[in-house]
């Protein structure tokens, strides 16, 4: 276990003063079909002032993890493990005590700025509410003055007029600035930002990320930045945690993750991104298939069905999360083999087919297609005259031309 502690921390475990310490967090949702195990053993430590990026595809458990930290999960959720904020255990804490932590200790910025602001109250009222909840003897004048300061800080022009407006009078980017202002109102130790810029256009996203950086400078908060955008993480985070099927599969410094990934899933994610800064047209290396259902997950590594490196023992034995370098950990039996990897295409196929239906690979998942042939999609035969064009009219002709048509180019000759 010591190995693991070294990794999830950035520092020596003995001297660590982690502001947030999540250990073996598990979240299960009982449903009529069985238990959905949404978070499966997430552990991380957040140092003061640090930015931790959490990336993963939809359904990988990144949002549920942060909702568990905030104590915002519904009653039906079964949460186990430990979440310590400044040494205080948050799991099992009463709602009244938790309210003291929310906003003041840990604040949250949600994805959709329209639904996270109350449409019937003025912006100023909502800011003052956040302030006065935690400092009950703050006068209304002081609250207003502080609200104006905060709005200035997040770059809202004409704060004096804007403070008396309603959320609908603000654009999406401006609303998200207000949400950030509310989050930083009480100088929290931790700000959890869950996809804070996903709903925004790129030019507005750049502005809002700038505001988030300014907020961090001002409050010295640590930030947990949850996103699916690997570009945003590259620019903001100190450390990155990659999640897949409810558990961290890789955790390391931002340089380790982007330049020295040790988990095939991370390699696949990076290889499937088109790059705006690279001129030559490259073929992308998608990860075939879909993430598994978290209902009655089979034993073994959940990435096995999509993993180009999988071996028989991957199906039976889930790899432990272990150290693969200084402050760098990964959950893969064969992470050593990725040490000298130059490009994702060395392990992933450049393909355009779809490997199969979601959860086609296991009879155990919630699978409306249970009767379907398991892993049935055959690997299409390689087409020799790959670049050759087939006139559209030929599409209709049956049988004779089929093998030709059924072979979507499996290999991009243009790949470099």
């Amino acid at each position, binding site marked *: 276990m010591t190995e693991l502690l070294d990794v999830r921390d950035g520092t020596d475990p003995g001297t660590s003063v982690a502001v947030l310490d999540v250990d073996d967090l598990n979240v299960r949702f009982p449903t009529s079909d069985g238990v959905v195990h949404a978070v499966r053993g997430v552990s991380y430590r957040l140092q003061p002032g640090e930015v931790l990026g959490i990336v993963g595809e939809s359904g990988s458990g990144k949002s549920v993890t942060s909702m568990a930290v905030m104590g915002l999960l519904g009653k039906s959720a079964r949460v186990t493990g430990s979440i310590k904020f400044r040494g205080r255990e948050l799991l099992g804490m009463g709602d009244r005590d938790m309210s003291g932590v929310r906003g003041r200790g840990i604040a949250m910025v949600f994805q959709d700025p329209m639904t996270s602001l109350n449409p019937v109250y003025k912006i100023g009222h909502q800011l003052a509410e956040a302030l006065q909840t935690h400092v009950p003897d703050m006068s209304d004048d002081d609250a207003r003055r502080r609200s104006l300061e905060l709005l200035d800080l997040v770059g809202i022009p004409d704060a004096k007029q804007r403070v008396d407006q309603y959320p609908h009078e603000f654009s999406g980017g401006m609303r998200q600035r207000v949400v950030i202002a509310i989050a930083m109102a009480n100088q929290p130790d931790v700000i959890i930002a869950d996809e804070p810029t996903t709903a925004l256009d790129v030019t507005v996203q750049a502005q809002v990320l700038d505001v988030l950086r300014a907020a961090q400078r001002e409050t010295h908060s640590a930030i947990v930045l949850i996103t699916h955008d690997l570009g945003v993480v590259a620019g903001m985070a100190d450390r990155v945690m990659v999640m897949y099927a409810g558990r961290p599969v890789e955790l390391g410094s931002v340089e380790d993750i982007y330049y020295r990934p040790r988990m095939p899933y991370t390699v696949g*994610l990076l290889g499937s991104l088109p790059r705006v800064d690279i001129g030559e047209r490259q073929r992308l290396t998608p990860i075939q298939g879909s993430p598994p259902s978290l209902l009655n997950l089979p034993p073994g590594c959940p990435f096995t069905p999509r993993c180009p490196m999988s071996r028989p023992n991957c199906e039976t034995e889930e790899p432990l999360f272990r150290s693969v370098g200084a402050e760098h950990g990964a959950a893969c039996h064969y992470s050593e083999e990725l040490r000298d990897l130059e490009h994702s295409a060395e392990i992933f196929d450049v*393909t355009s087919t779809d490997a199969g239906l979601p959860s086609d690979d296991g009879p155990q998942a919630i699978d409306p*297609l249970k009767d379907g042939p398991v892993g049935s999609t055959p690997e299409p035969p390689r087409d020799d005259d790959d670049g050759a064009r087939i006139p559209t009219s030929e*599409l209709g002709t049956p049988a004779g031309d089929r093998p030709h048509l059924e072979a979507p180019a499996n290999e991009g000759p243009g790949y470099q």
Partner: protein
Amino acid sequence: MTTTAERTPGPDDDLIMKVTDVEKYFPIMSKGVIRHHVGDVKAVDGISFNLRRNETLGLVGESGCGKSTTGRALLHLQPATAGSIVFDGHELTTLSQRAMRPLRRDIQIVFQDPYASLDPRMPVNSIVGEAMRIHGLWNKESTERIRVLLGLVGLNPEHGNRFPHEFSGGQRQRIGIARALALEPKVLVLDEPVSALDVSIQAGVINLLEDLKNRLGLAYIFIAHDLSVVRHISDRVAVMYLGKIVEIADTSELFERPAHPYTQSLLSAIPLPDPRRERARERILLTGDVPSPANPPSGCRFRTRCPKFANQLDDSQREQCVNEIPALDDRGMGHDVACHYAEVVDILA
């Protein structure tokens, strides 16, 4: 496969679609019993471009810039209020819905949301075959053809009798593509076809679209807000802002030598998935938000947010931006740009 020779634009007789000064205004009506026409939302305000055979034209811009409306106008789904769209020798803007129908075989669309664009009560075979039935092309070979189409988009033809809910997002988008290909179109309008998908899934659909274009000789209008995807897939790119094209050029030209301040700030705003480069970059931050298309700024529409207008121009130069609408012309850059003070800046170097 994708050599430079293939990406070089062909001669003009290769044109499949010619769009000239297309406008799409949505009327604003006053409130009350008698509703007066009080103004227009100028969603698309005079855009012109050409599409060649087997070419991918990327249409990029932020939300509300009119890129999707342009796509719908091309299909005559929301007929343009002015201008001309010539497709393969036919003028589309004056056609009635009935006269348009045979031409719909040649121009098909793939929508953004793969969950909303497939009828949940129809099995995949019927979804893909529906267009053939509507156009009276159904015959005894059609069942086989649907299997071929499903195979072509990388799906298992055995799954044709299943319903959309049984498929993942990426697979539904493939079904949407198969449906669009069923009538052997010449032009495919792809309206944000991958933005609803996770990155690992998105890559497979992009590869599929590239393969289909090369194998079937299709032309694409690729509408997207993600410039990385657009650079990857397009031969030429048009950048839109508030209903107008501000810059149009071959892909490599546009990304390596952007000349319009808006294109430049757009490129500089994209986060790069490469920590060292991303942290070393200088950002051109735009201030404010996109103005309302009901009441766009006079002269150059970008001037209210333009960093060049704010920081580099003197008052007399600014006057030109305020009073004179910049035309989309070649200003010595080798490509068309709509800015009085266009200047090439390499943003991504």
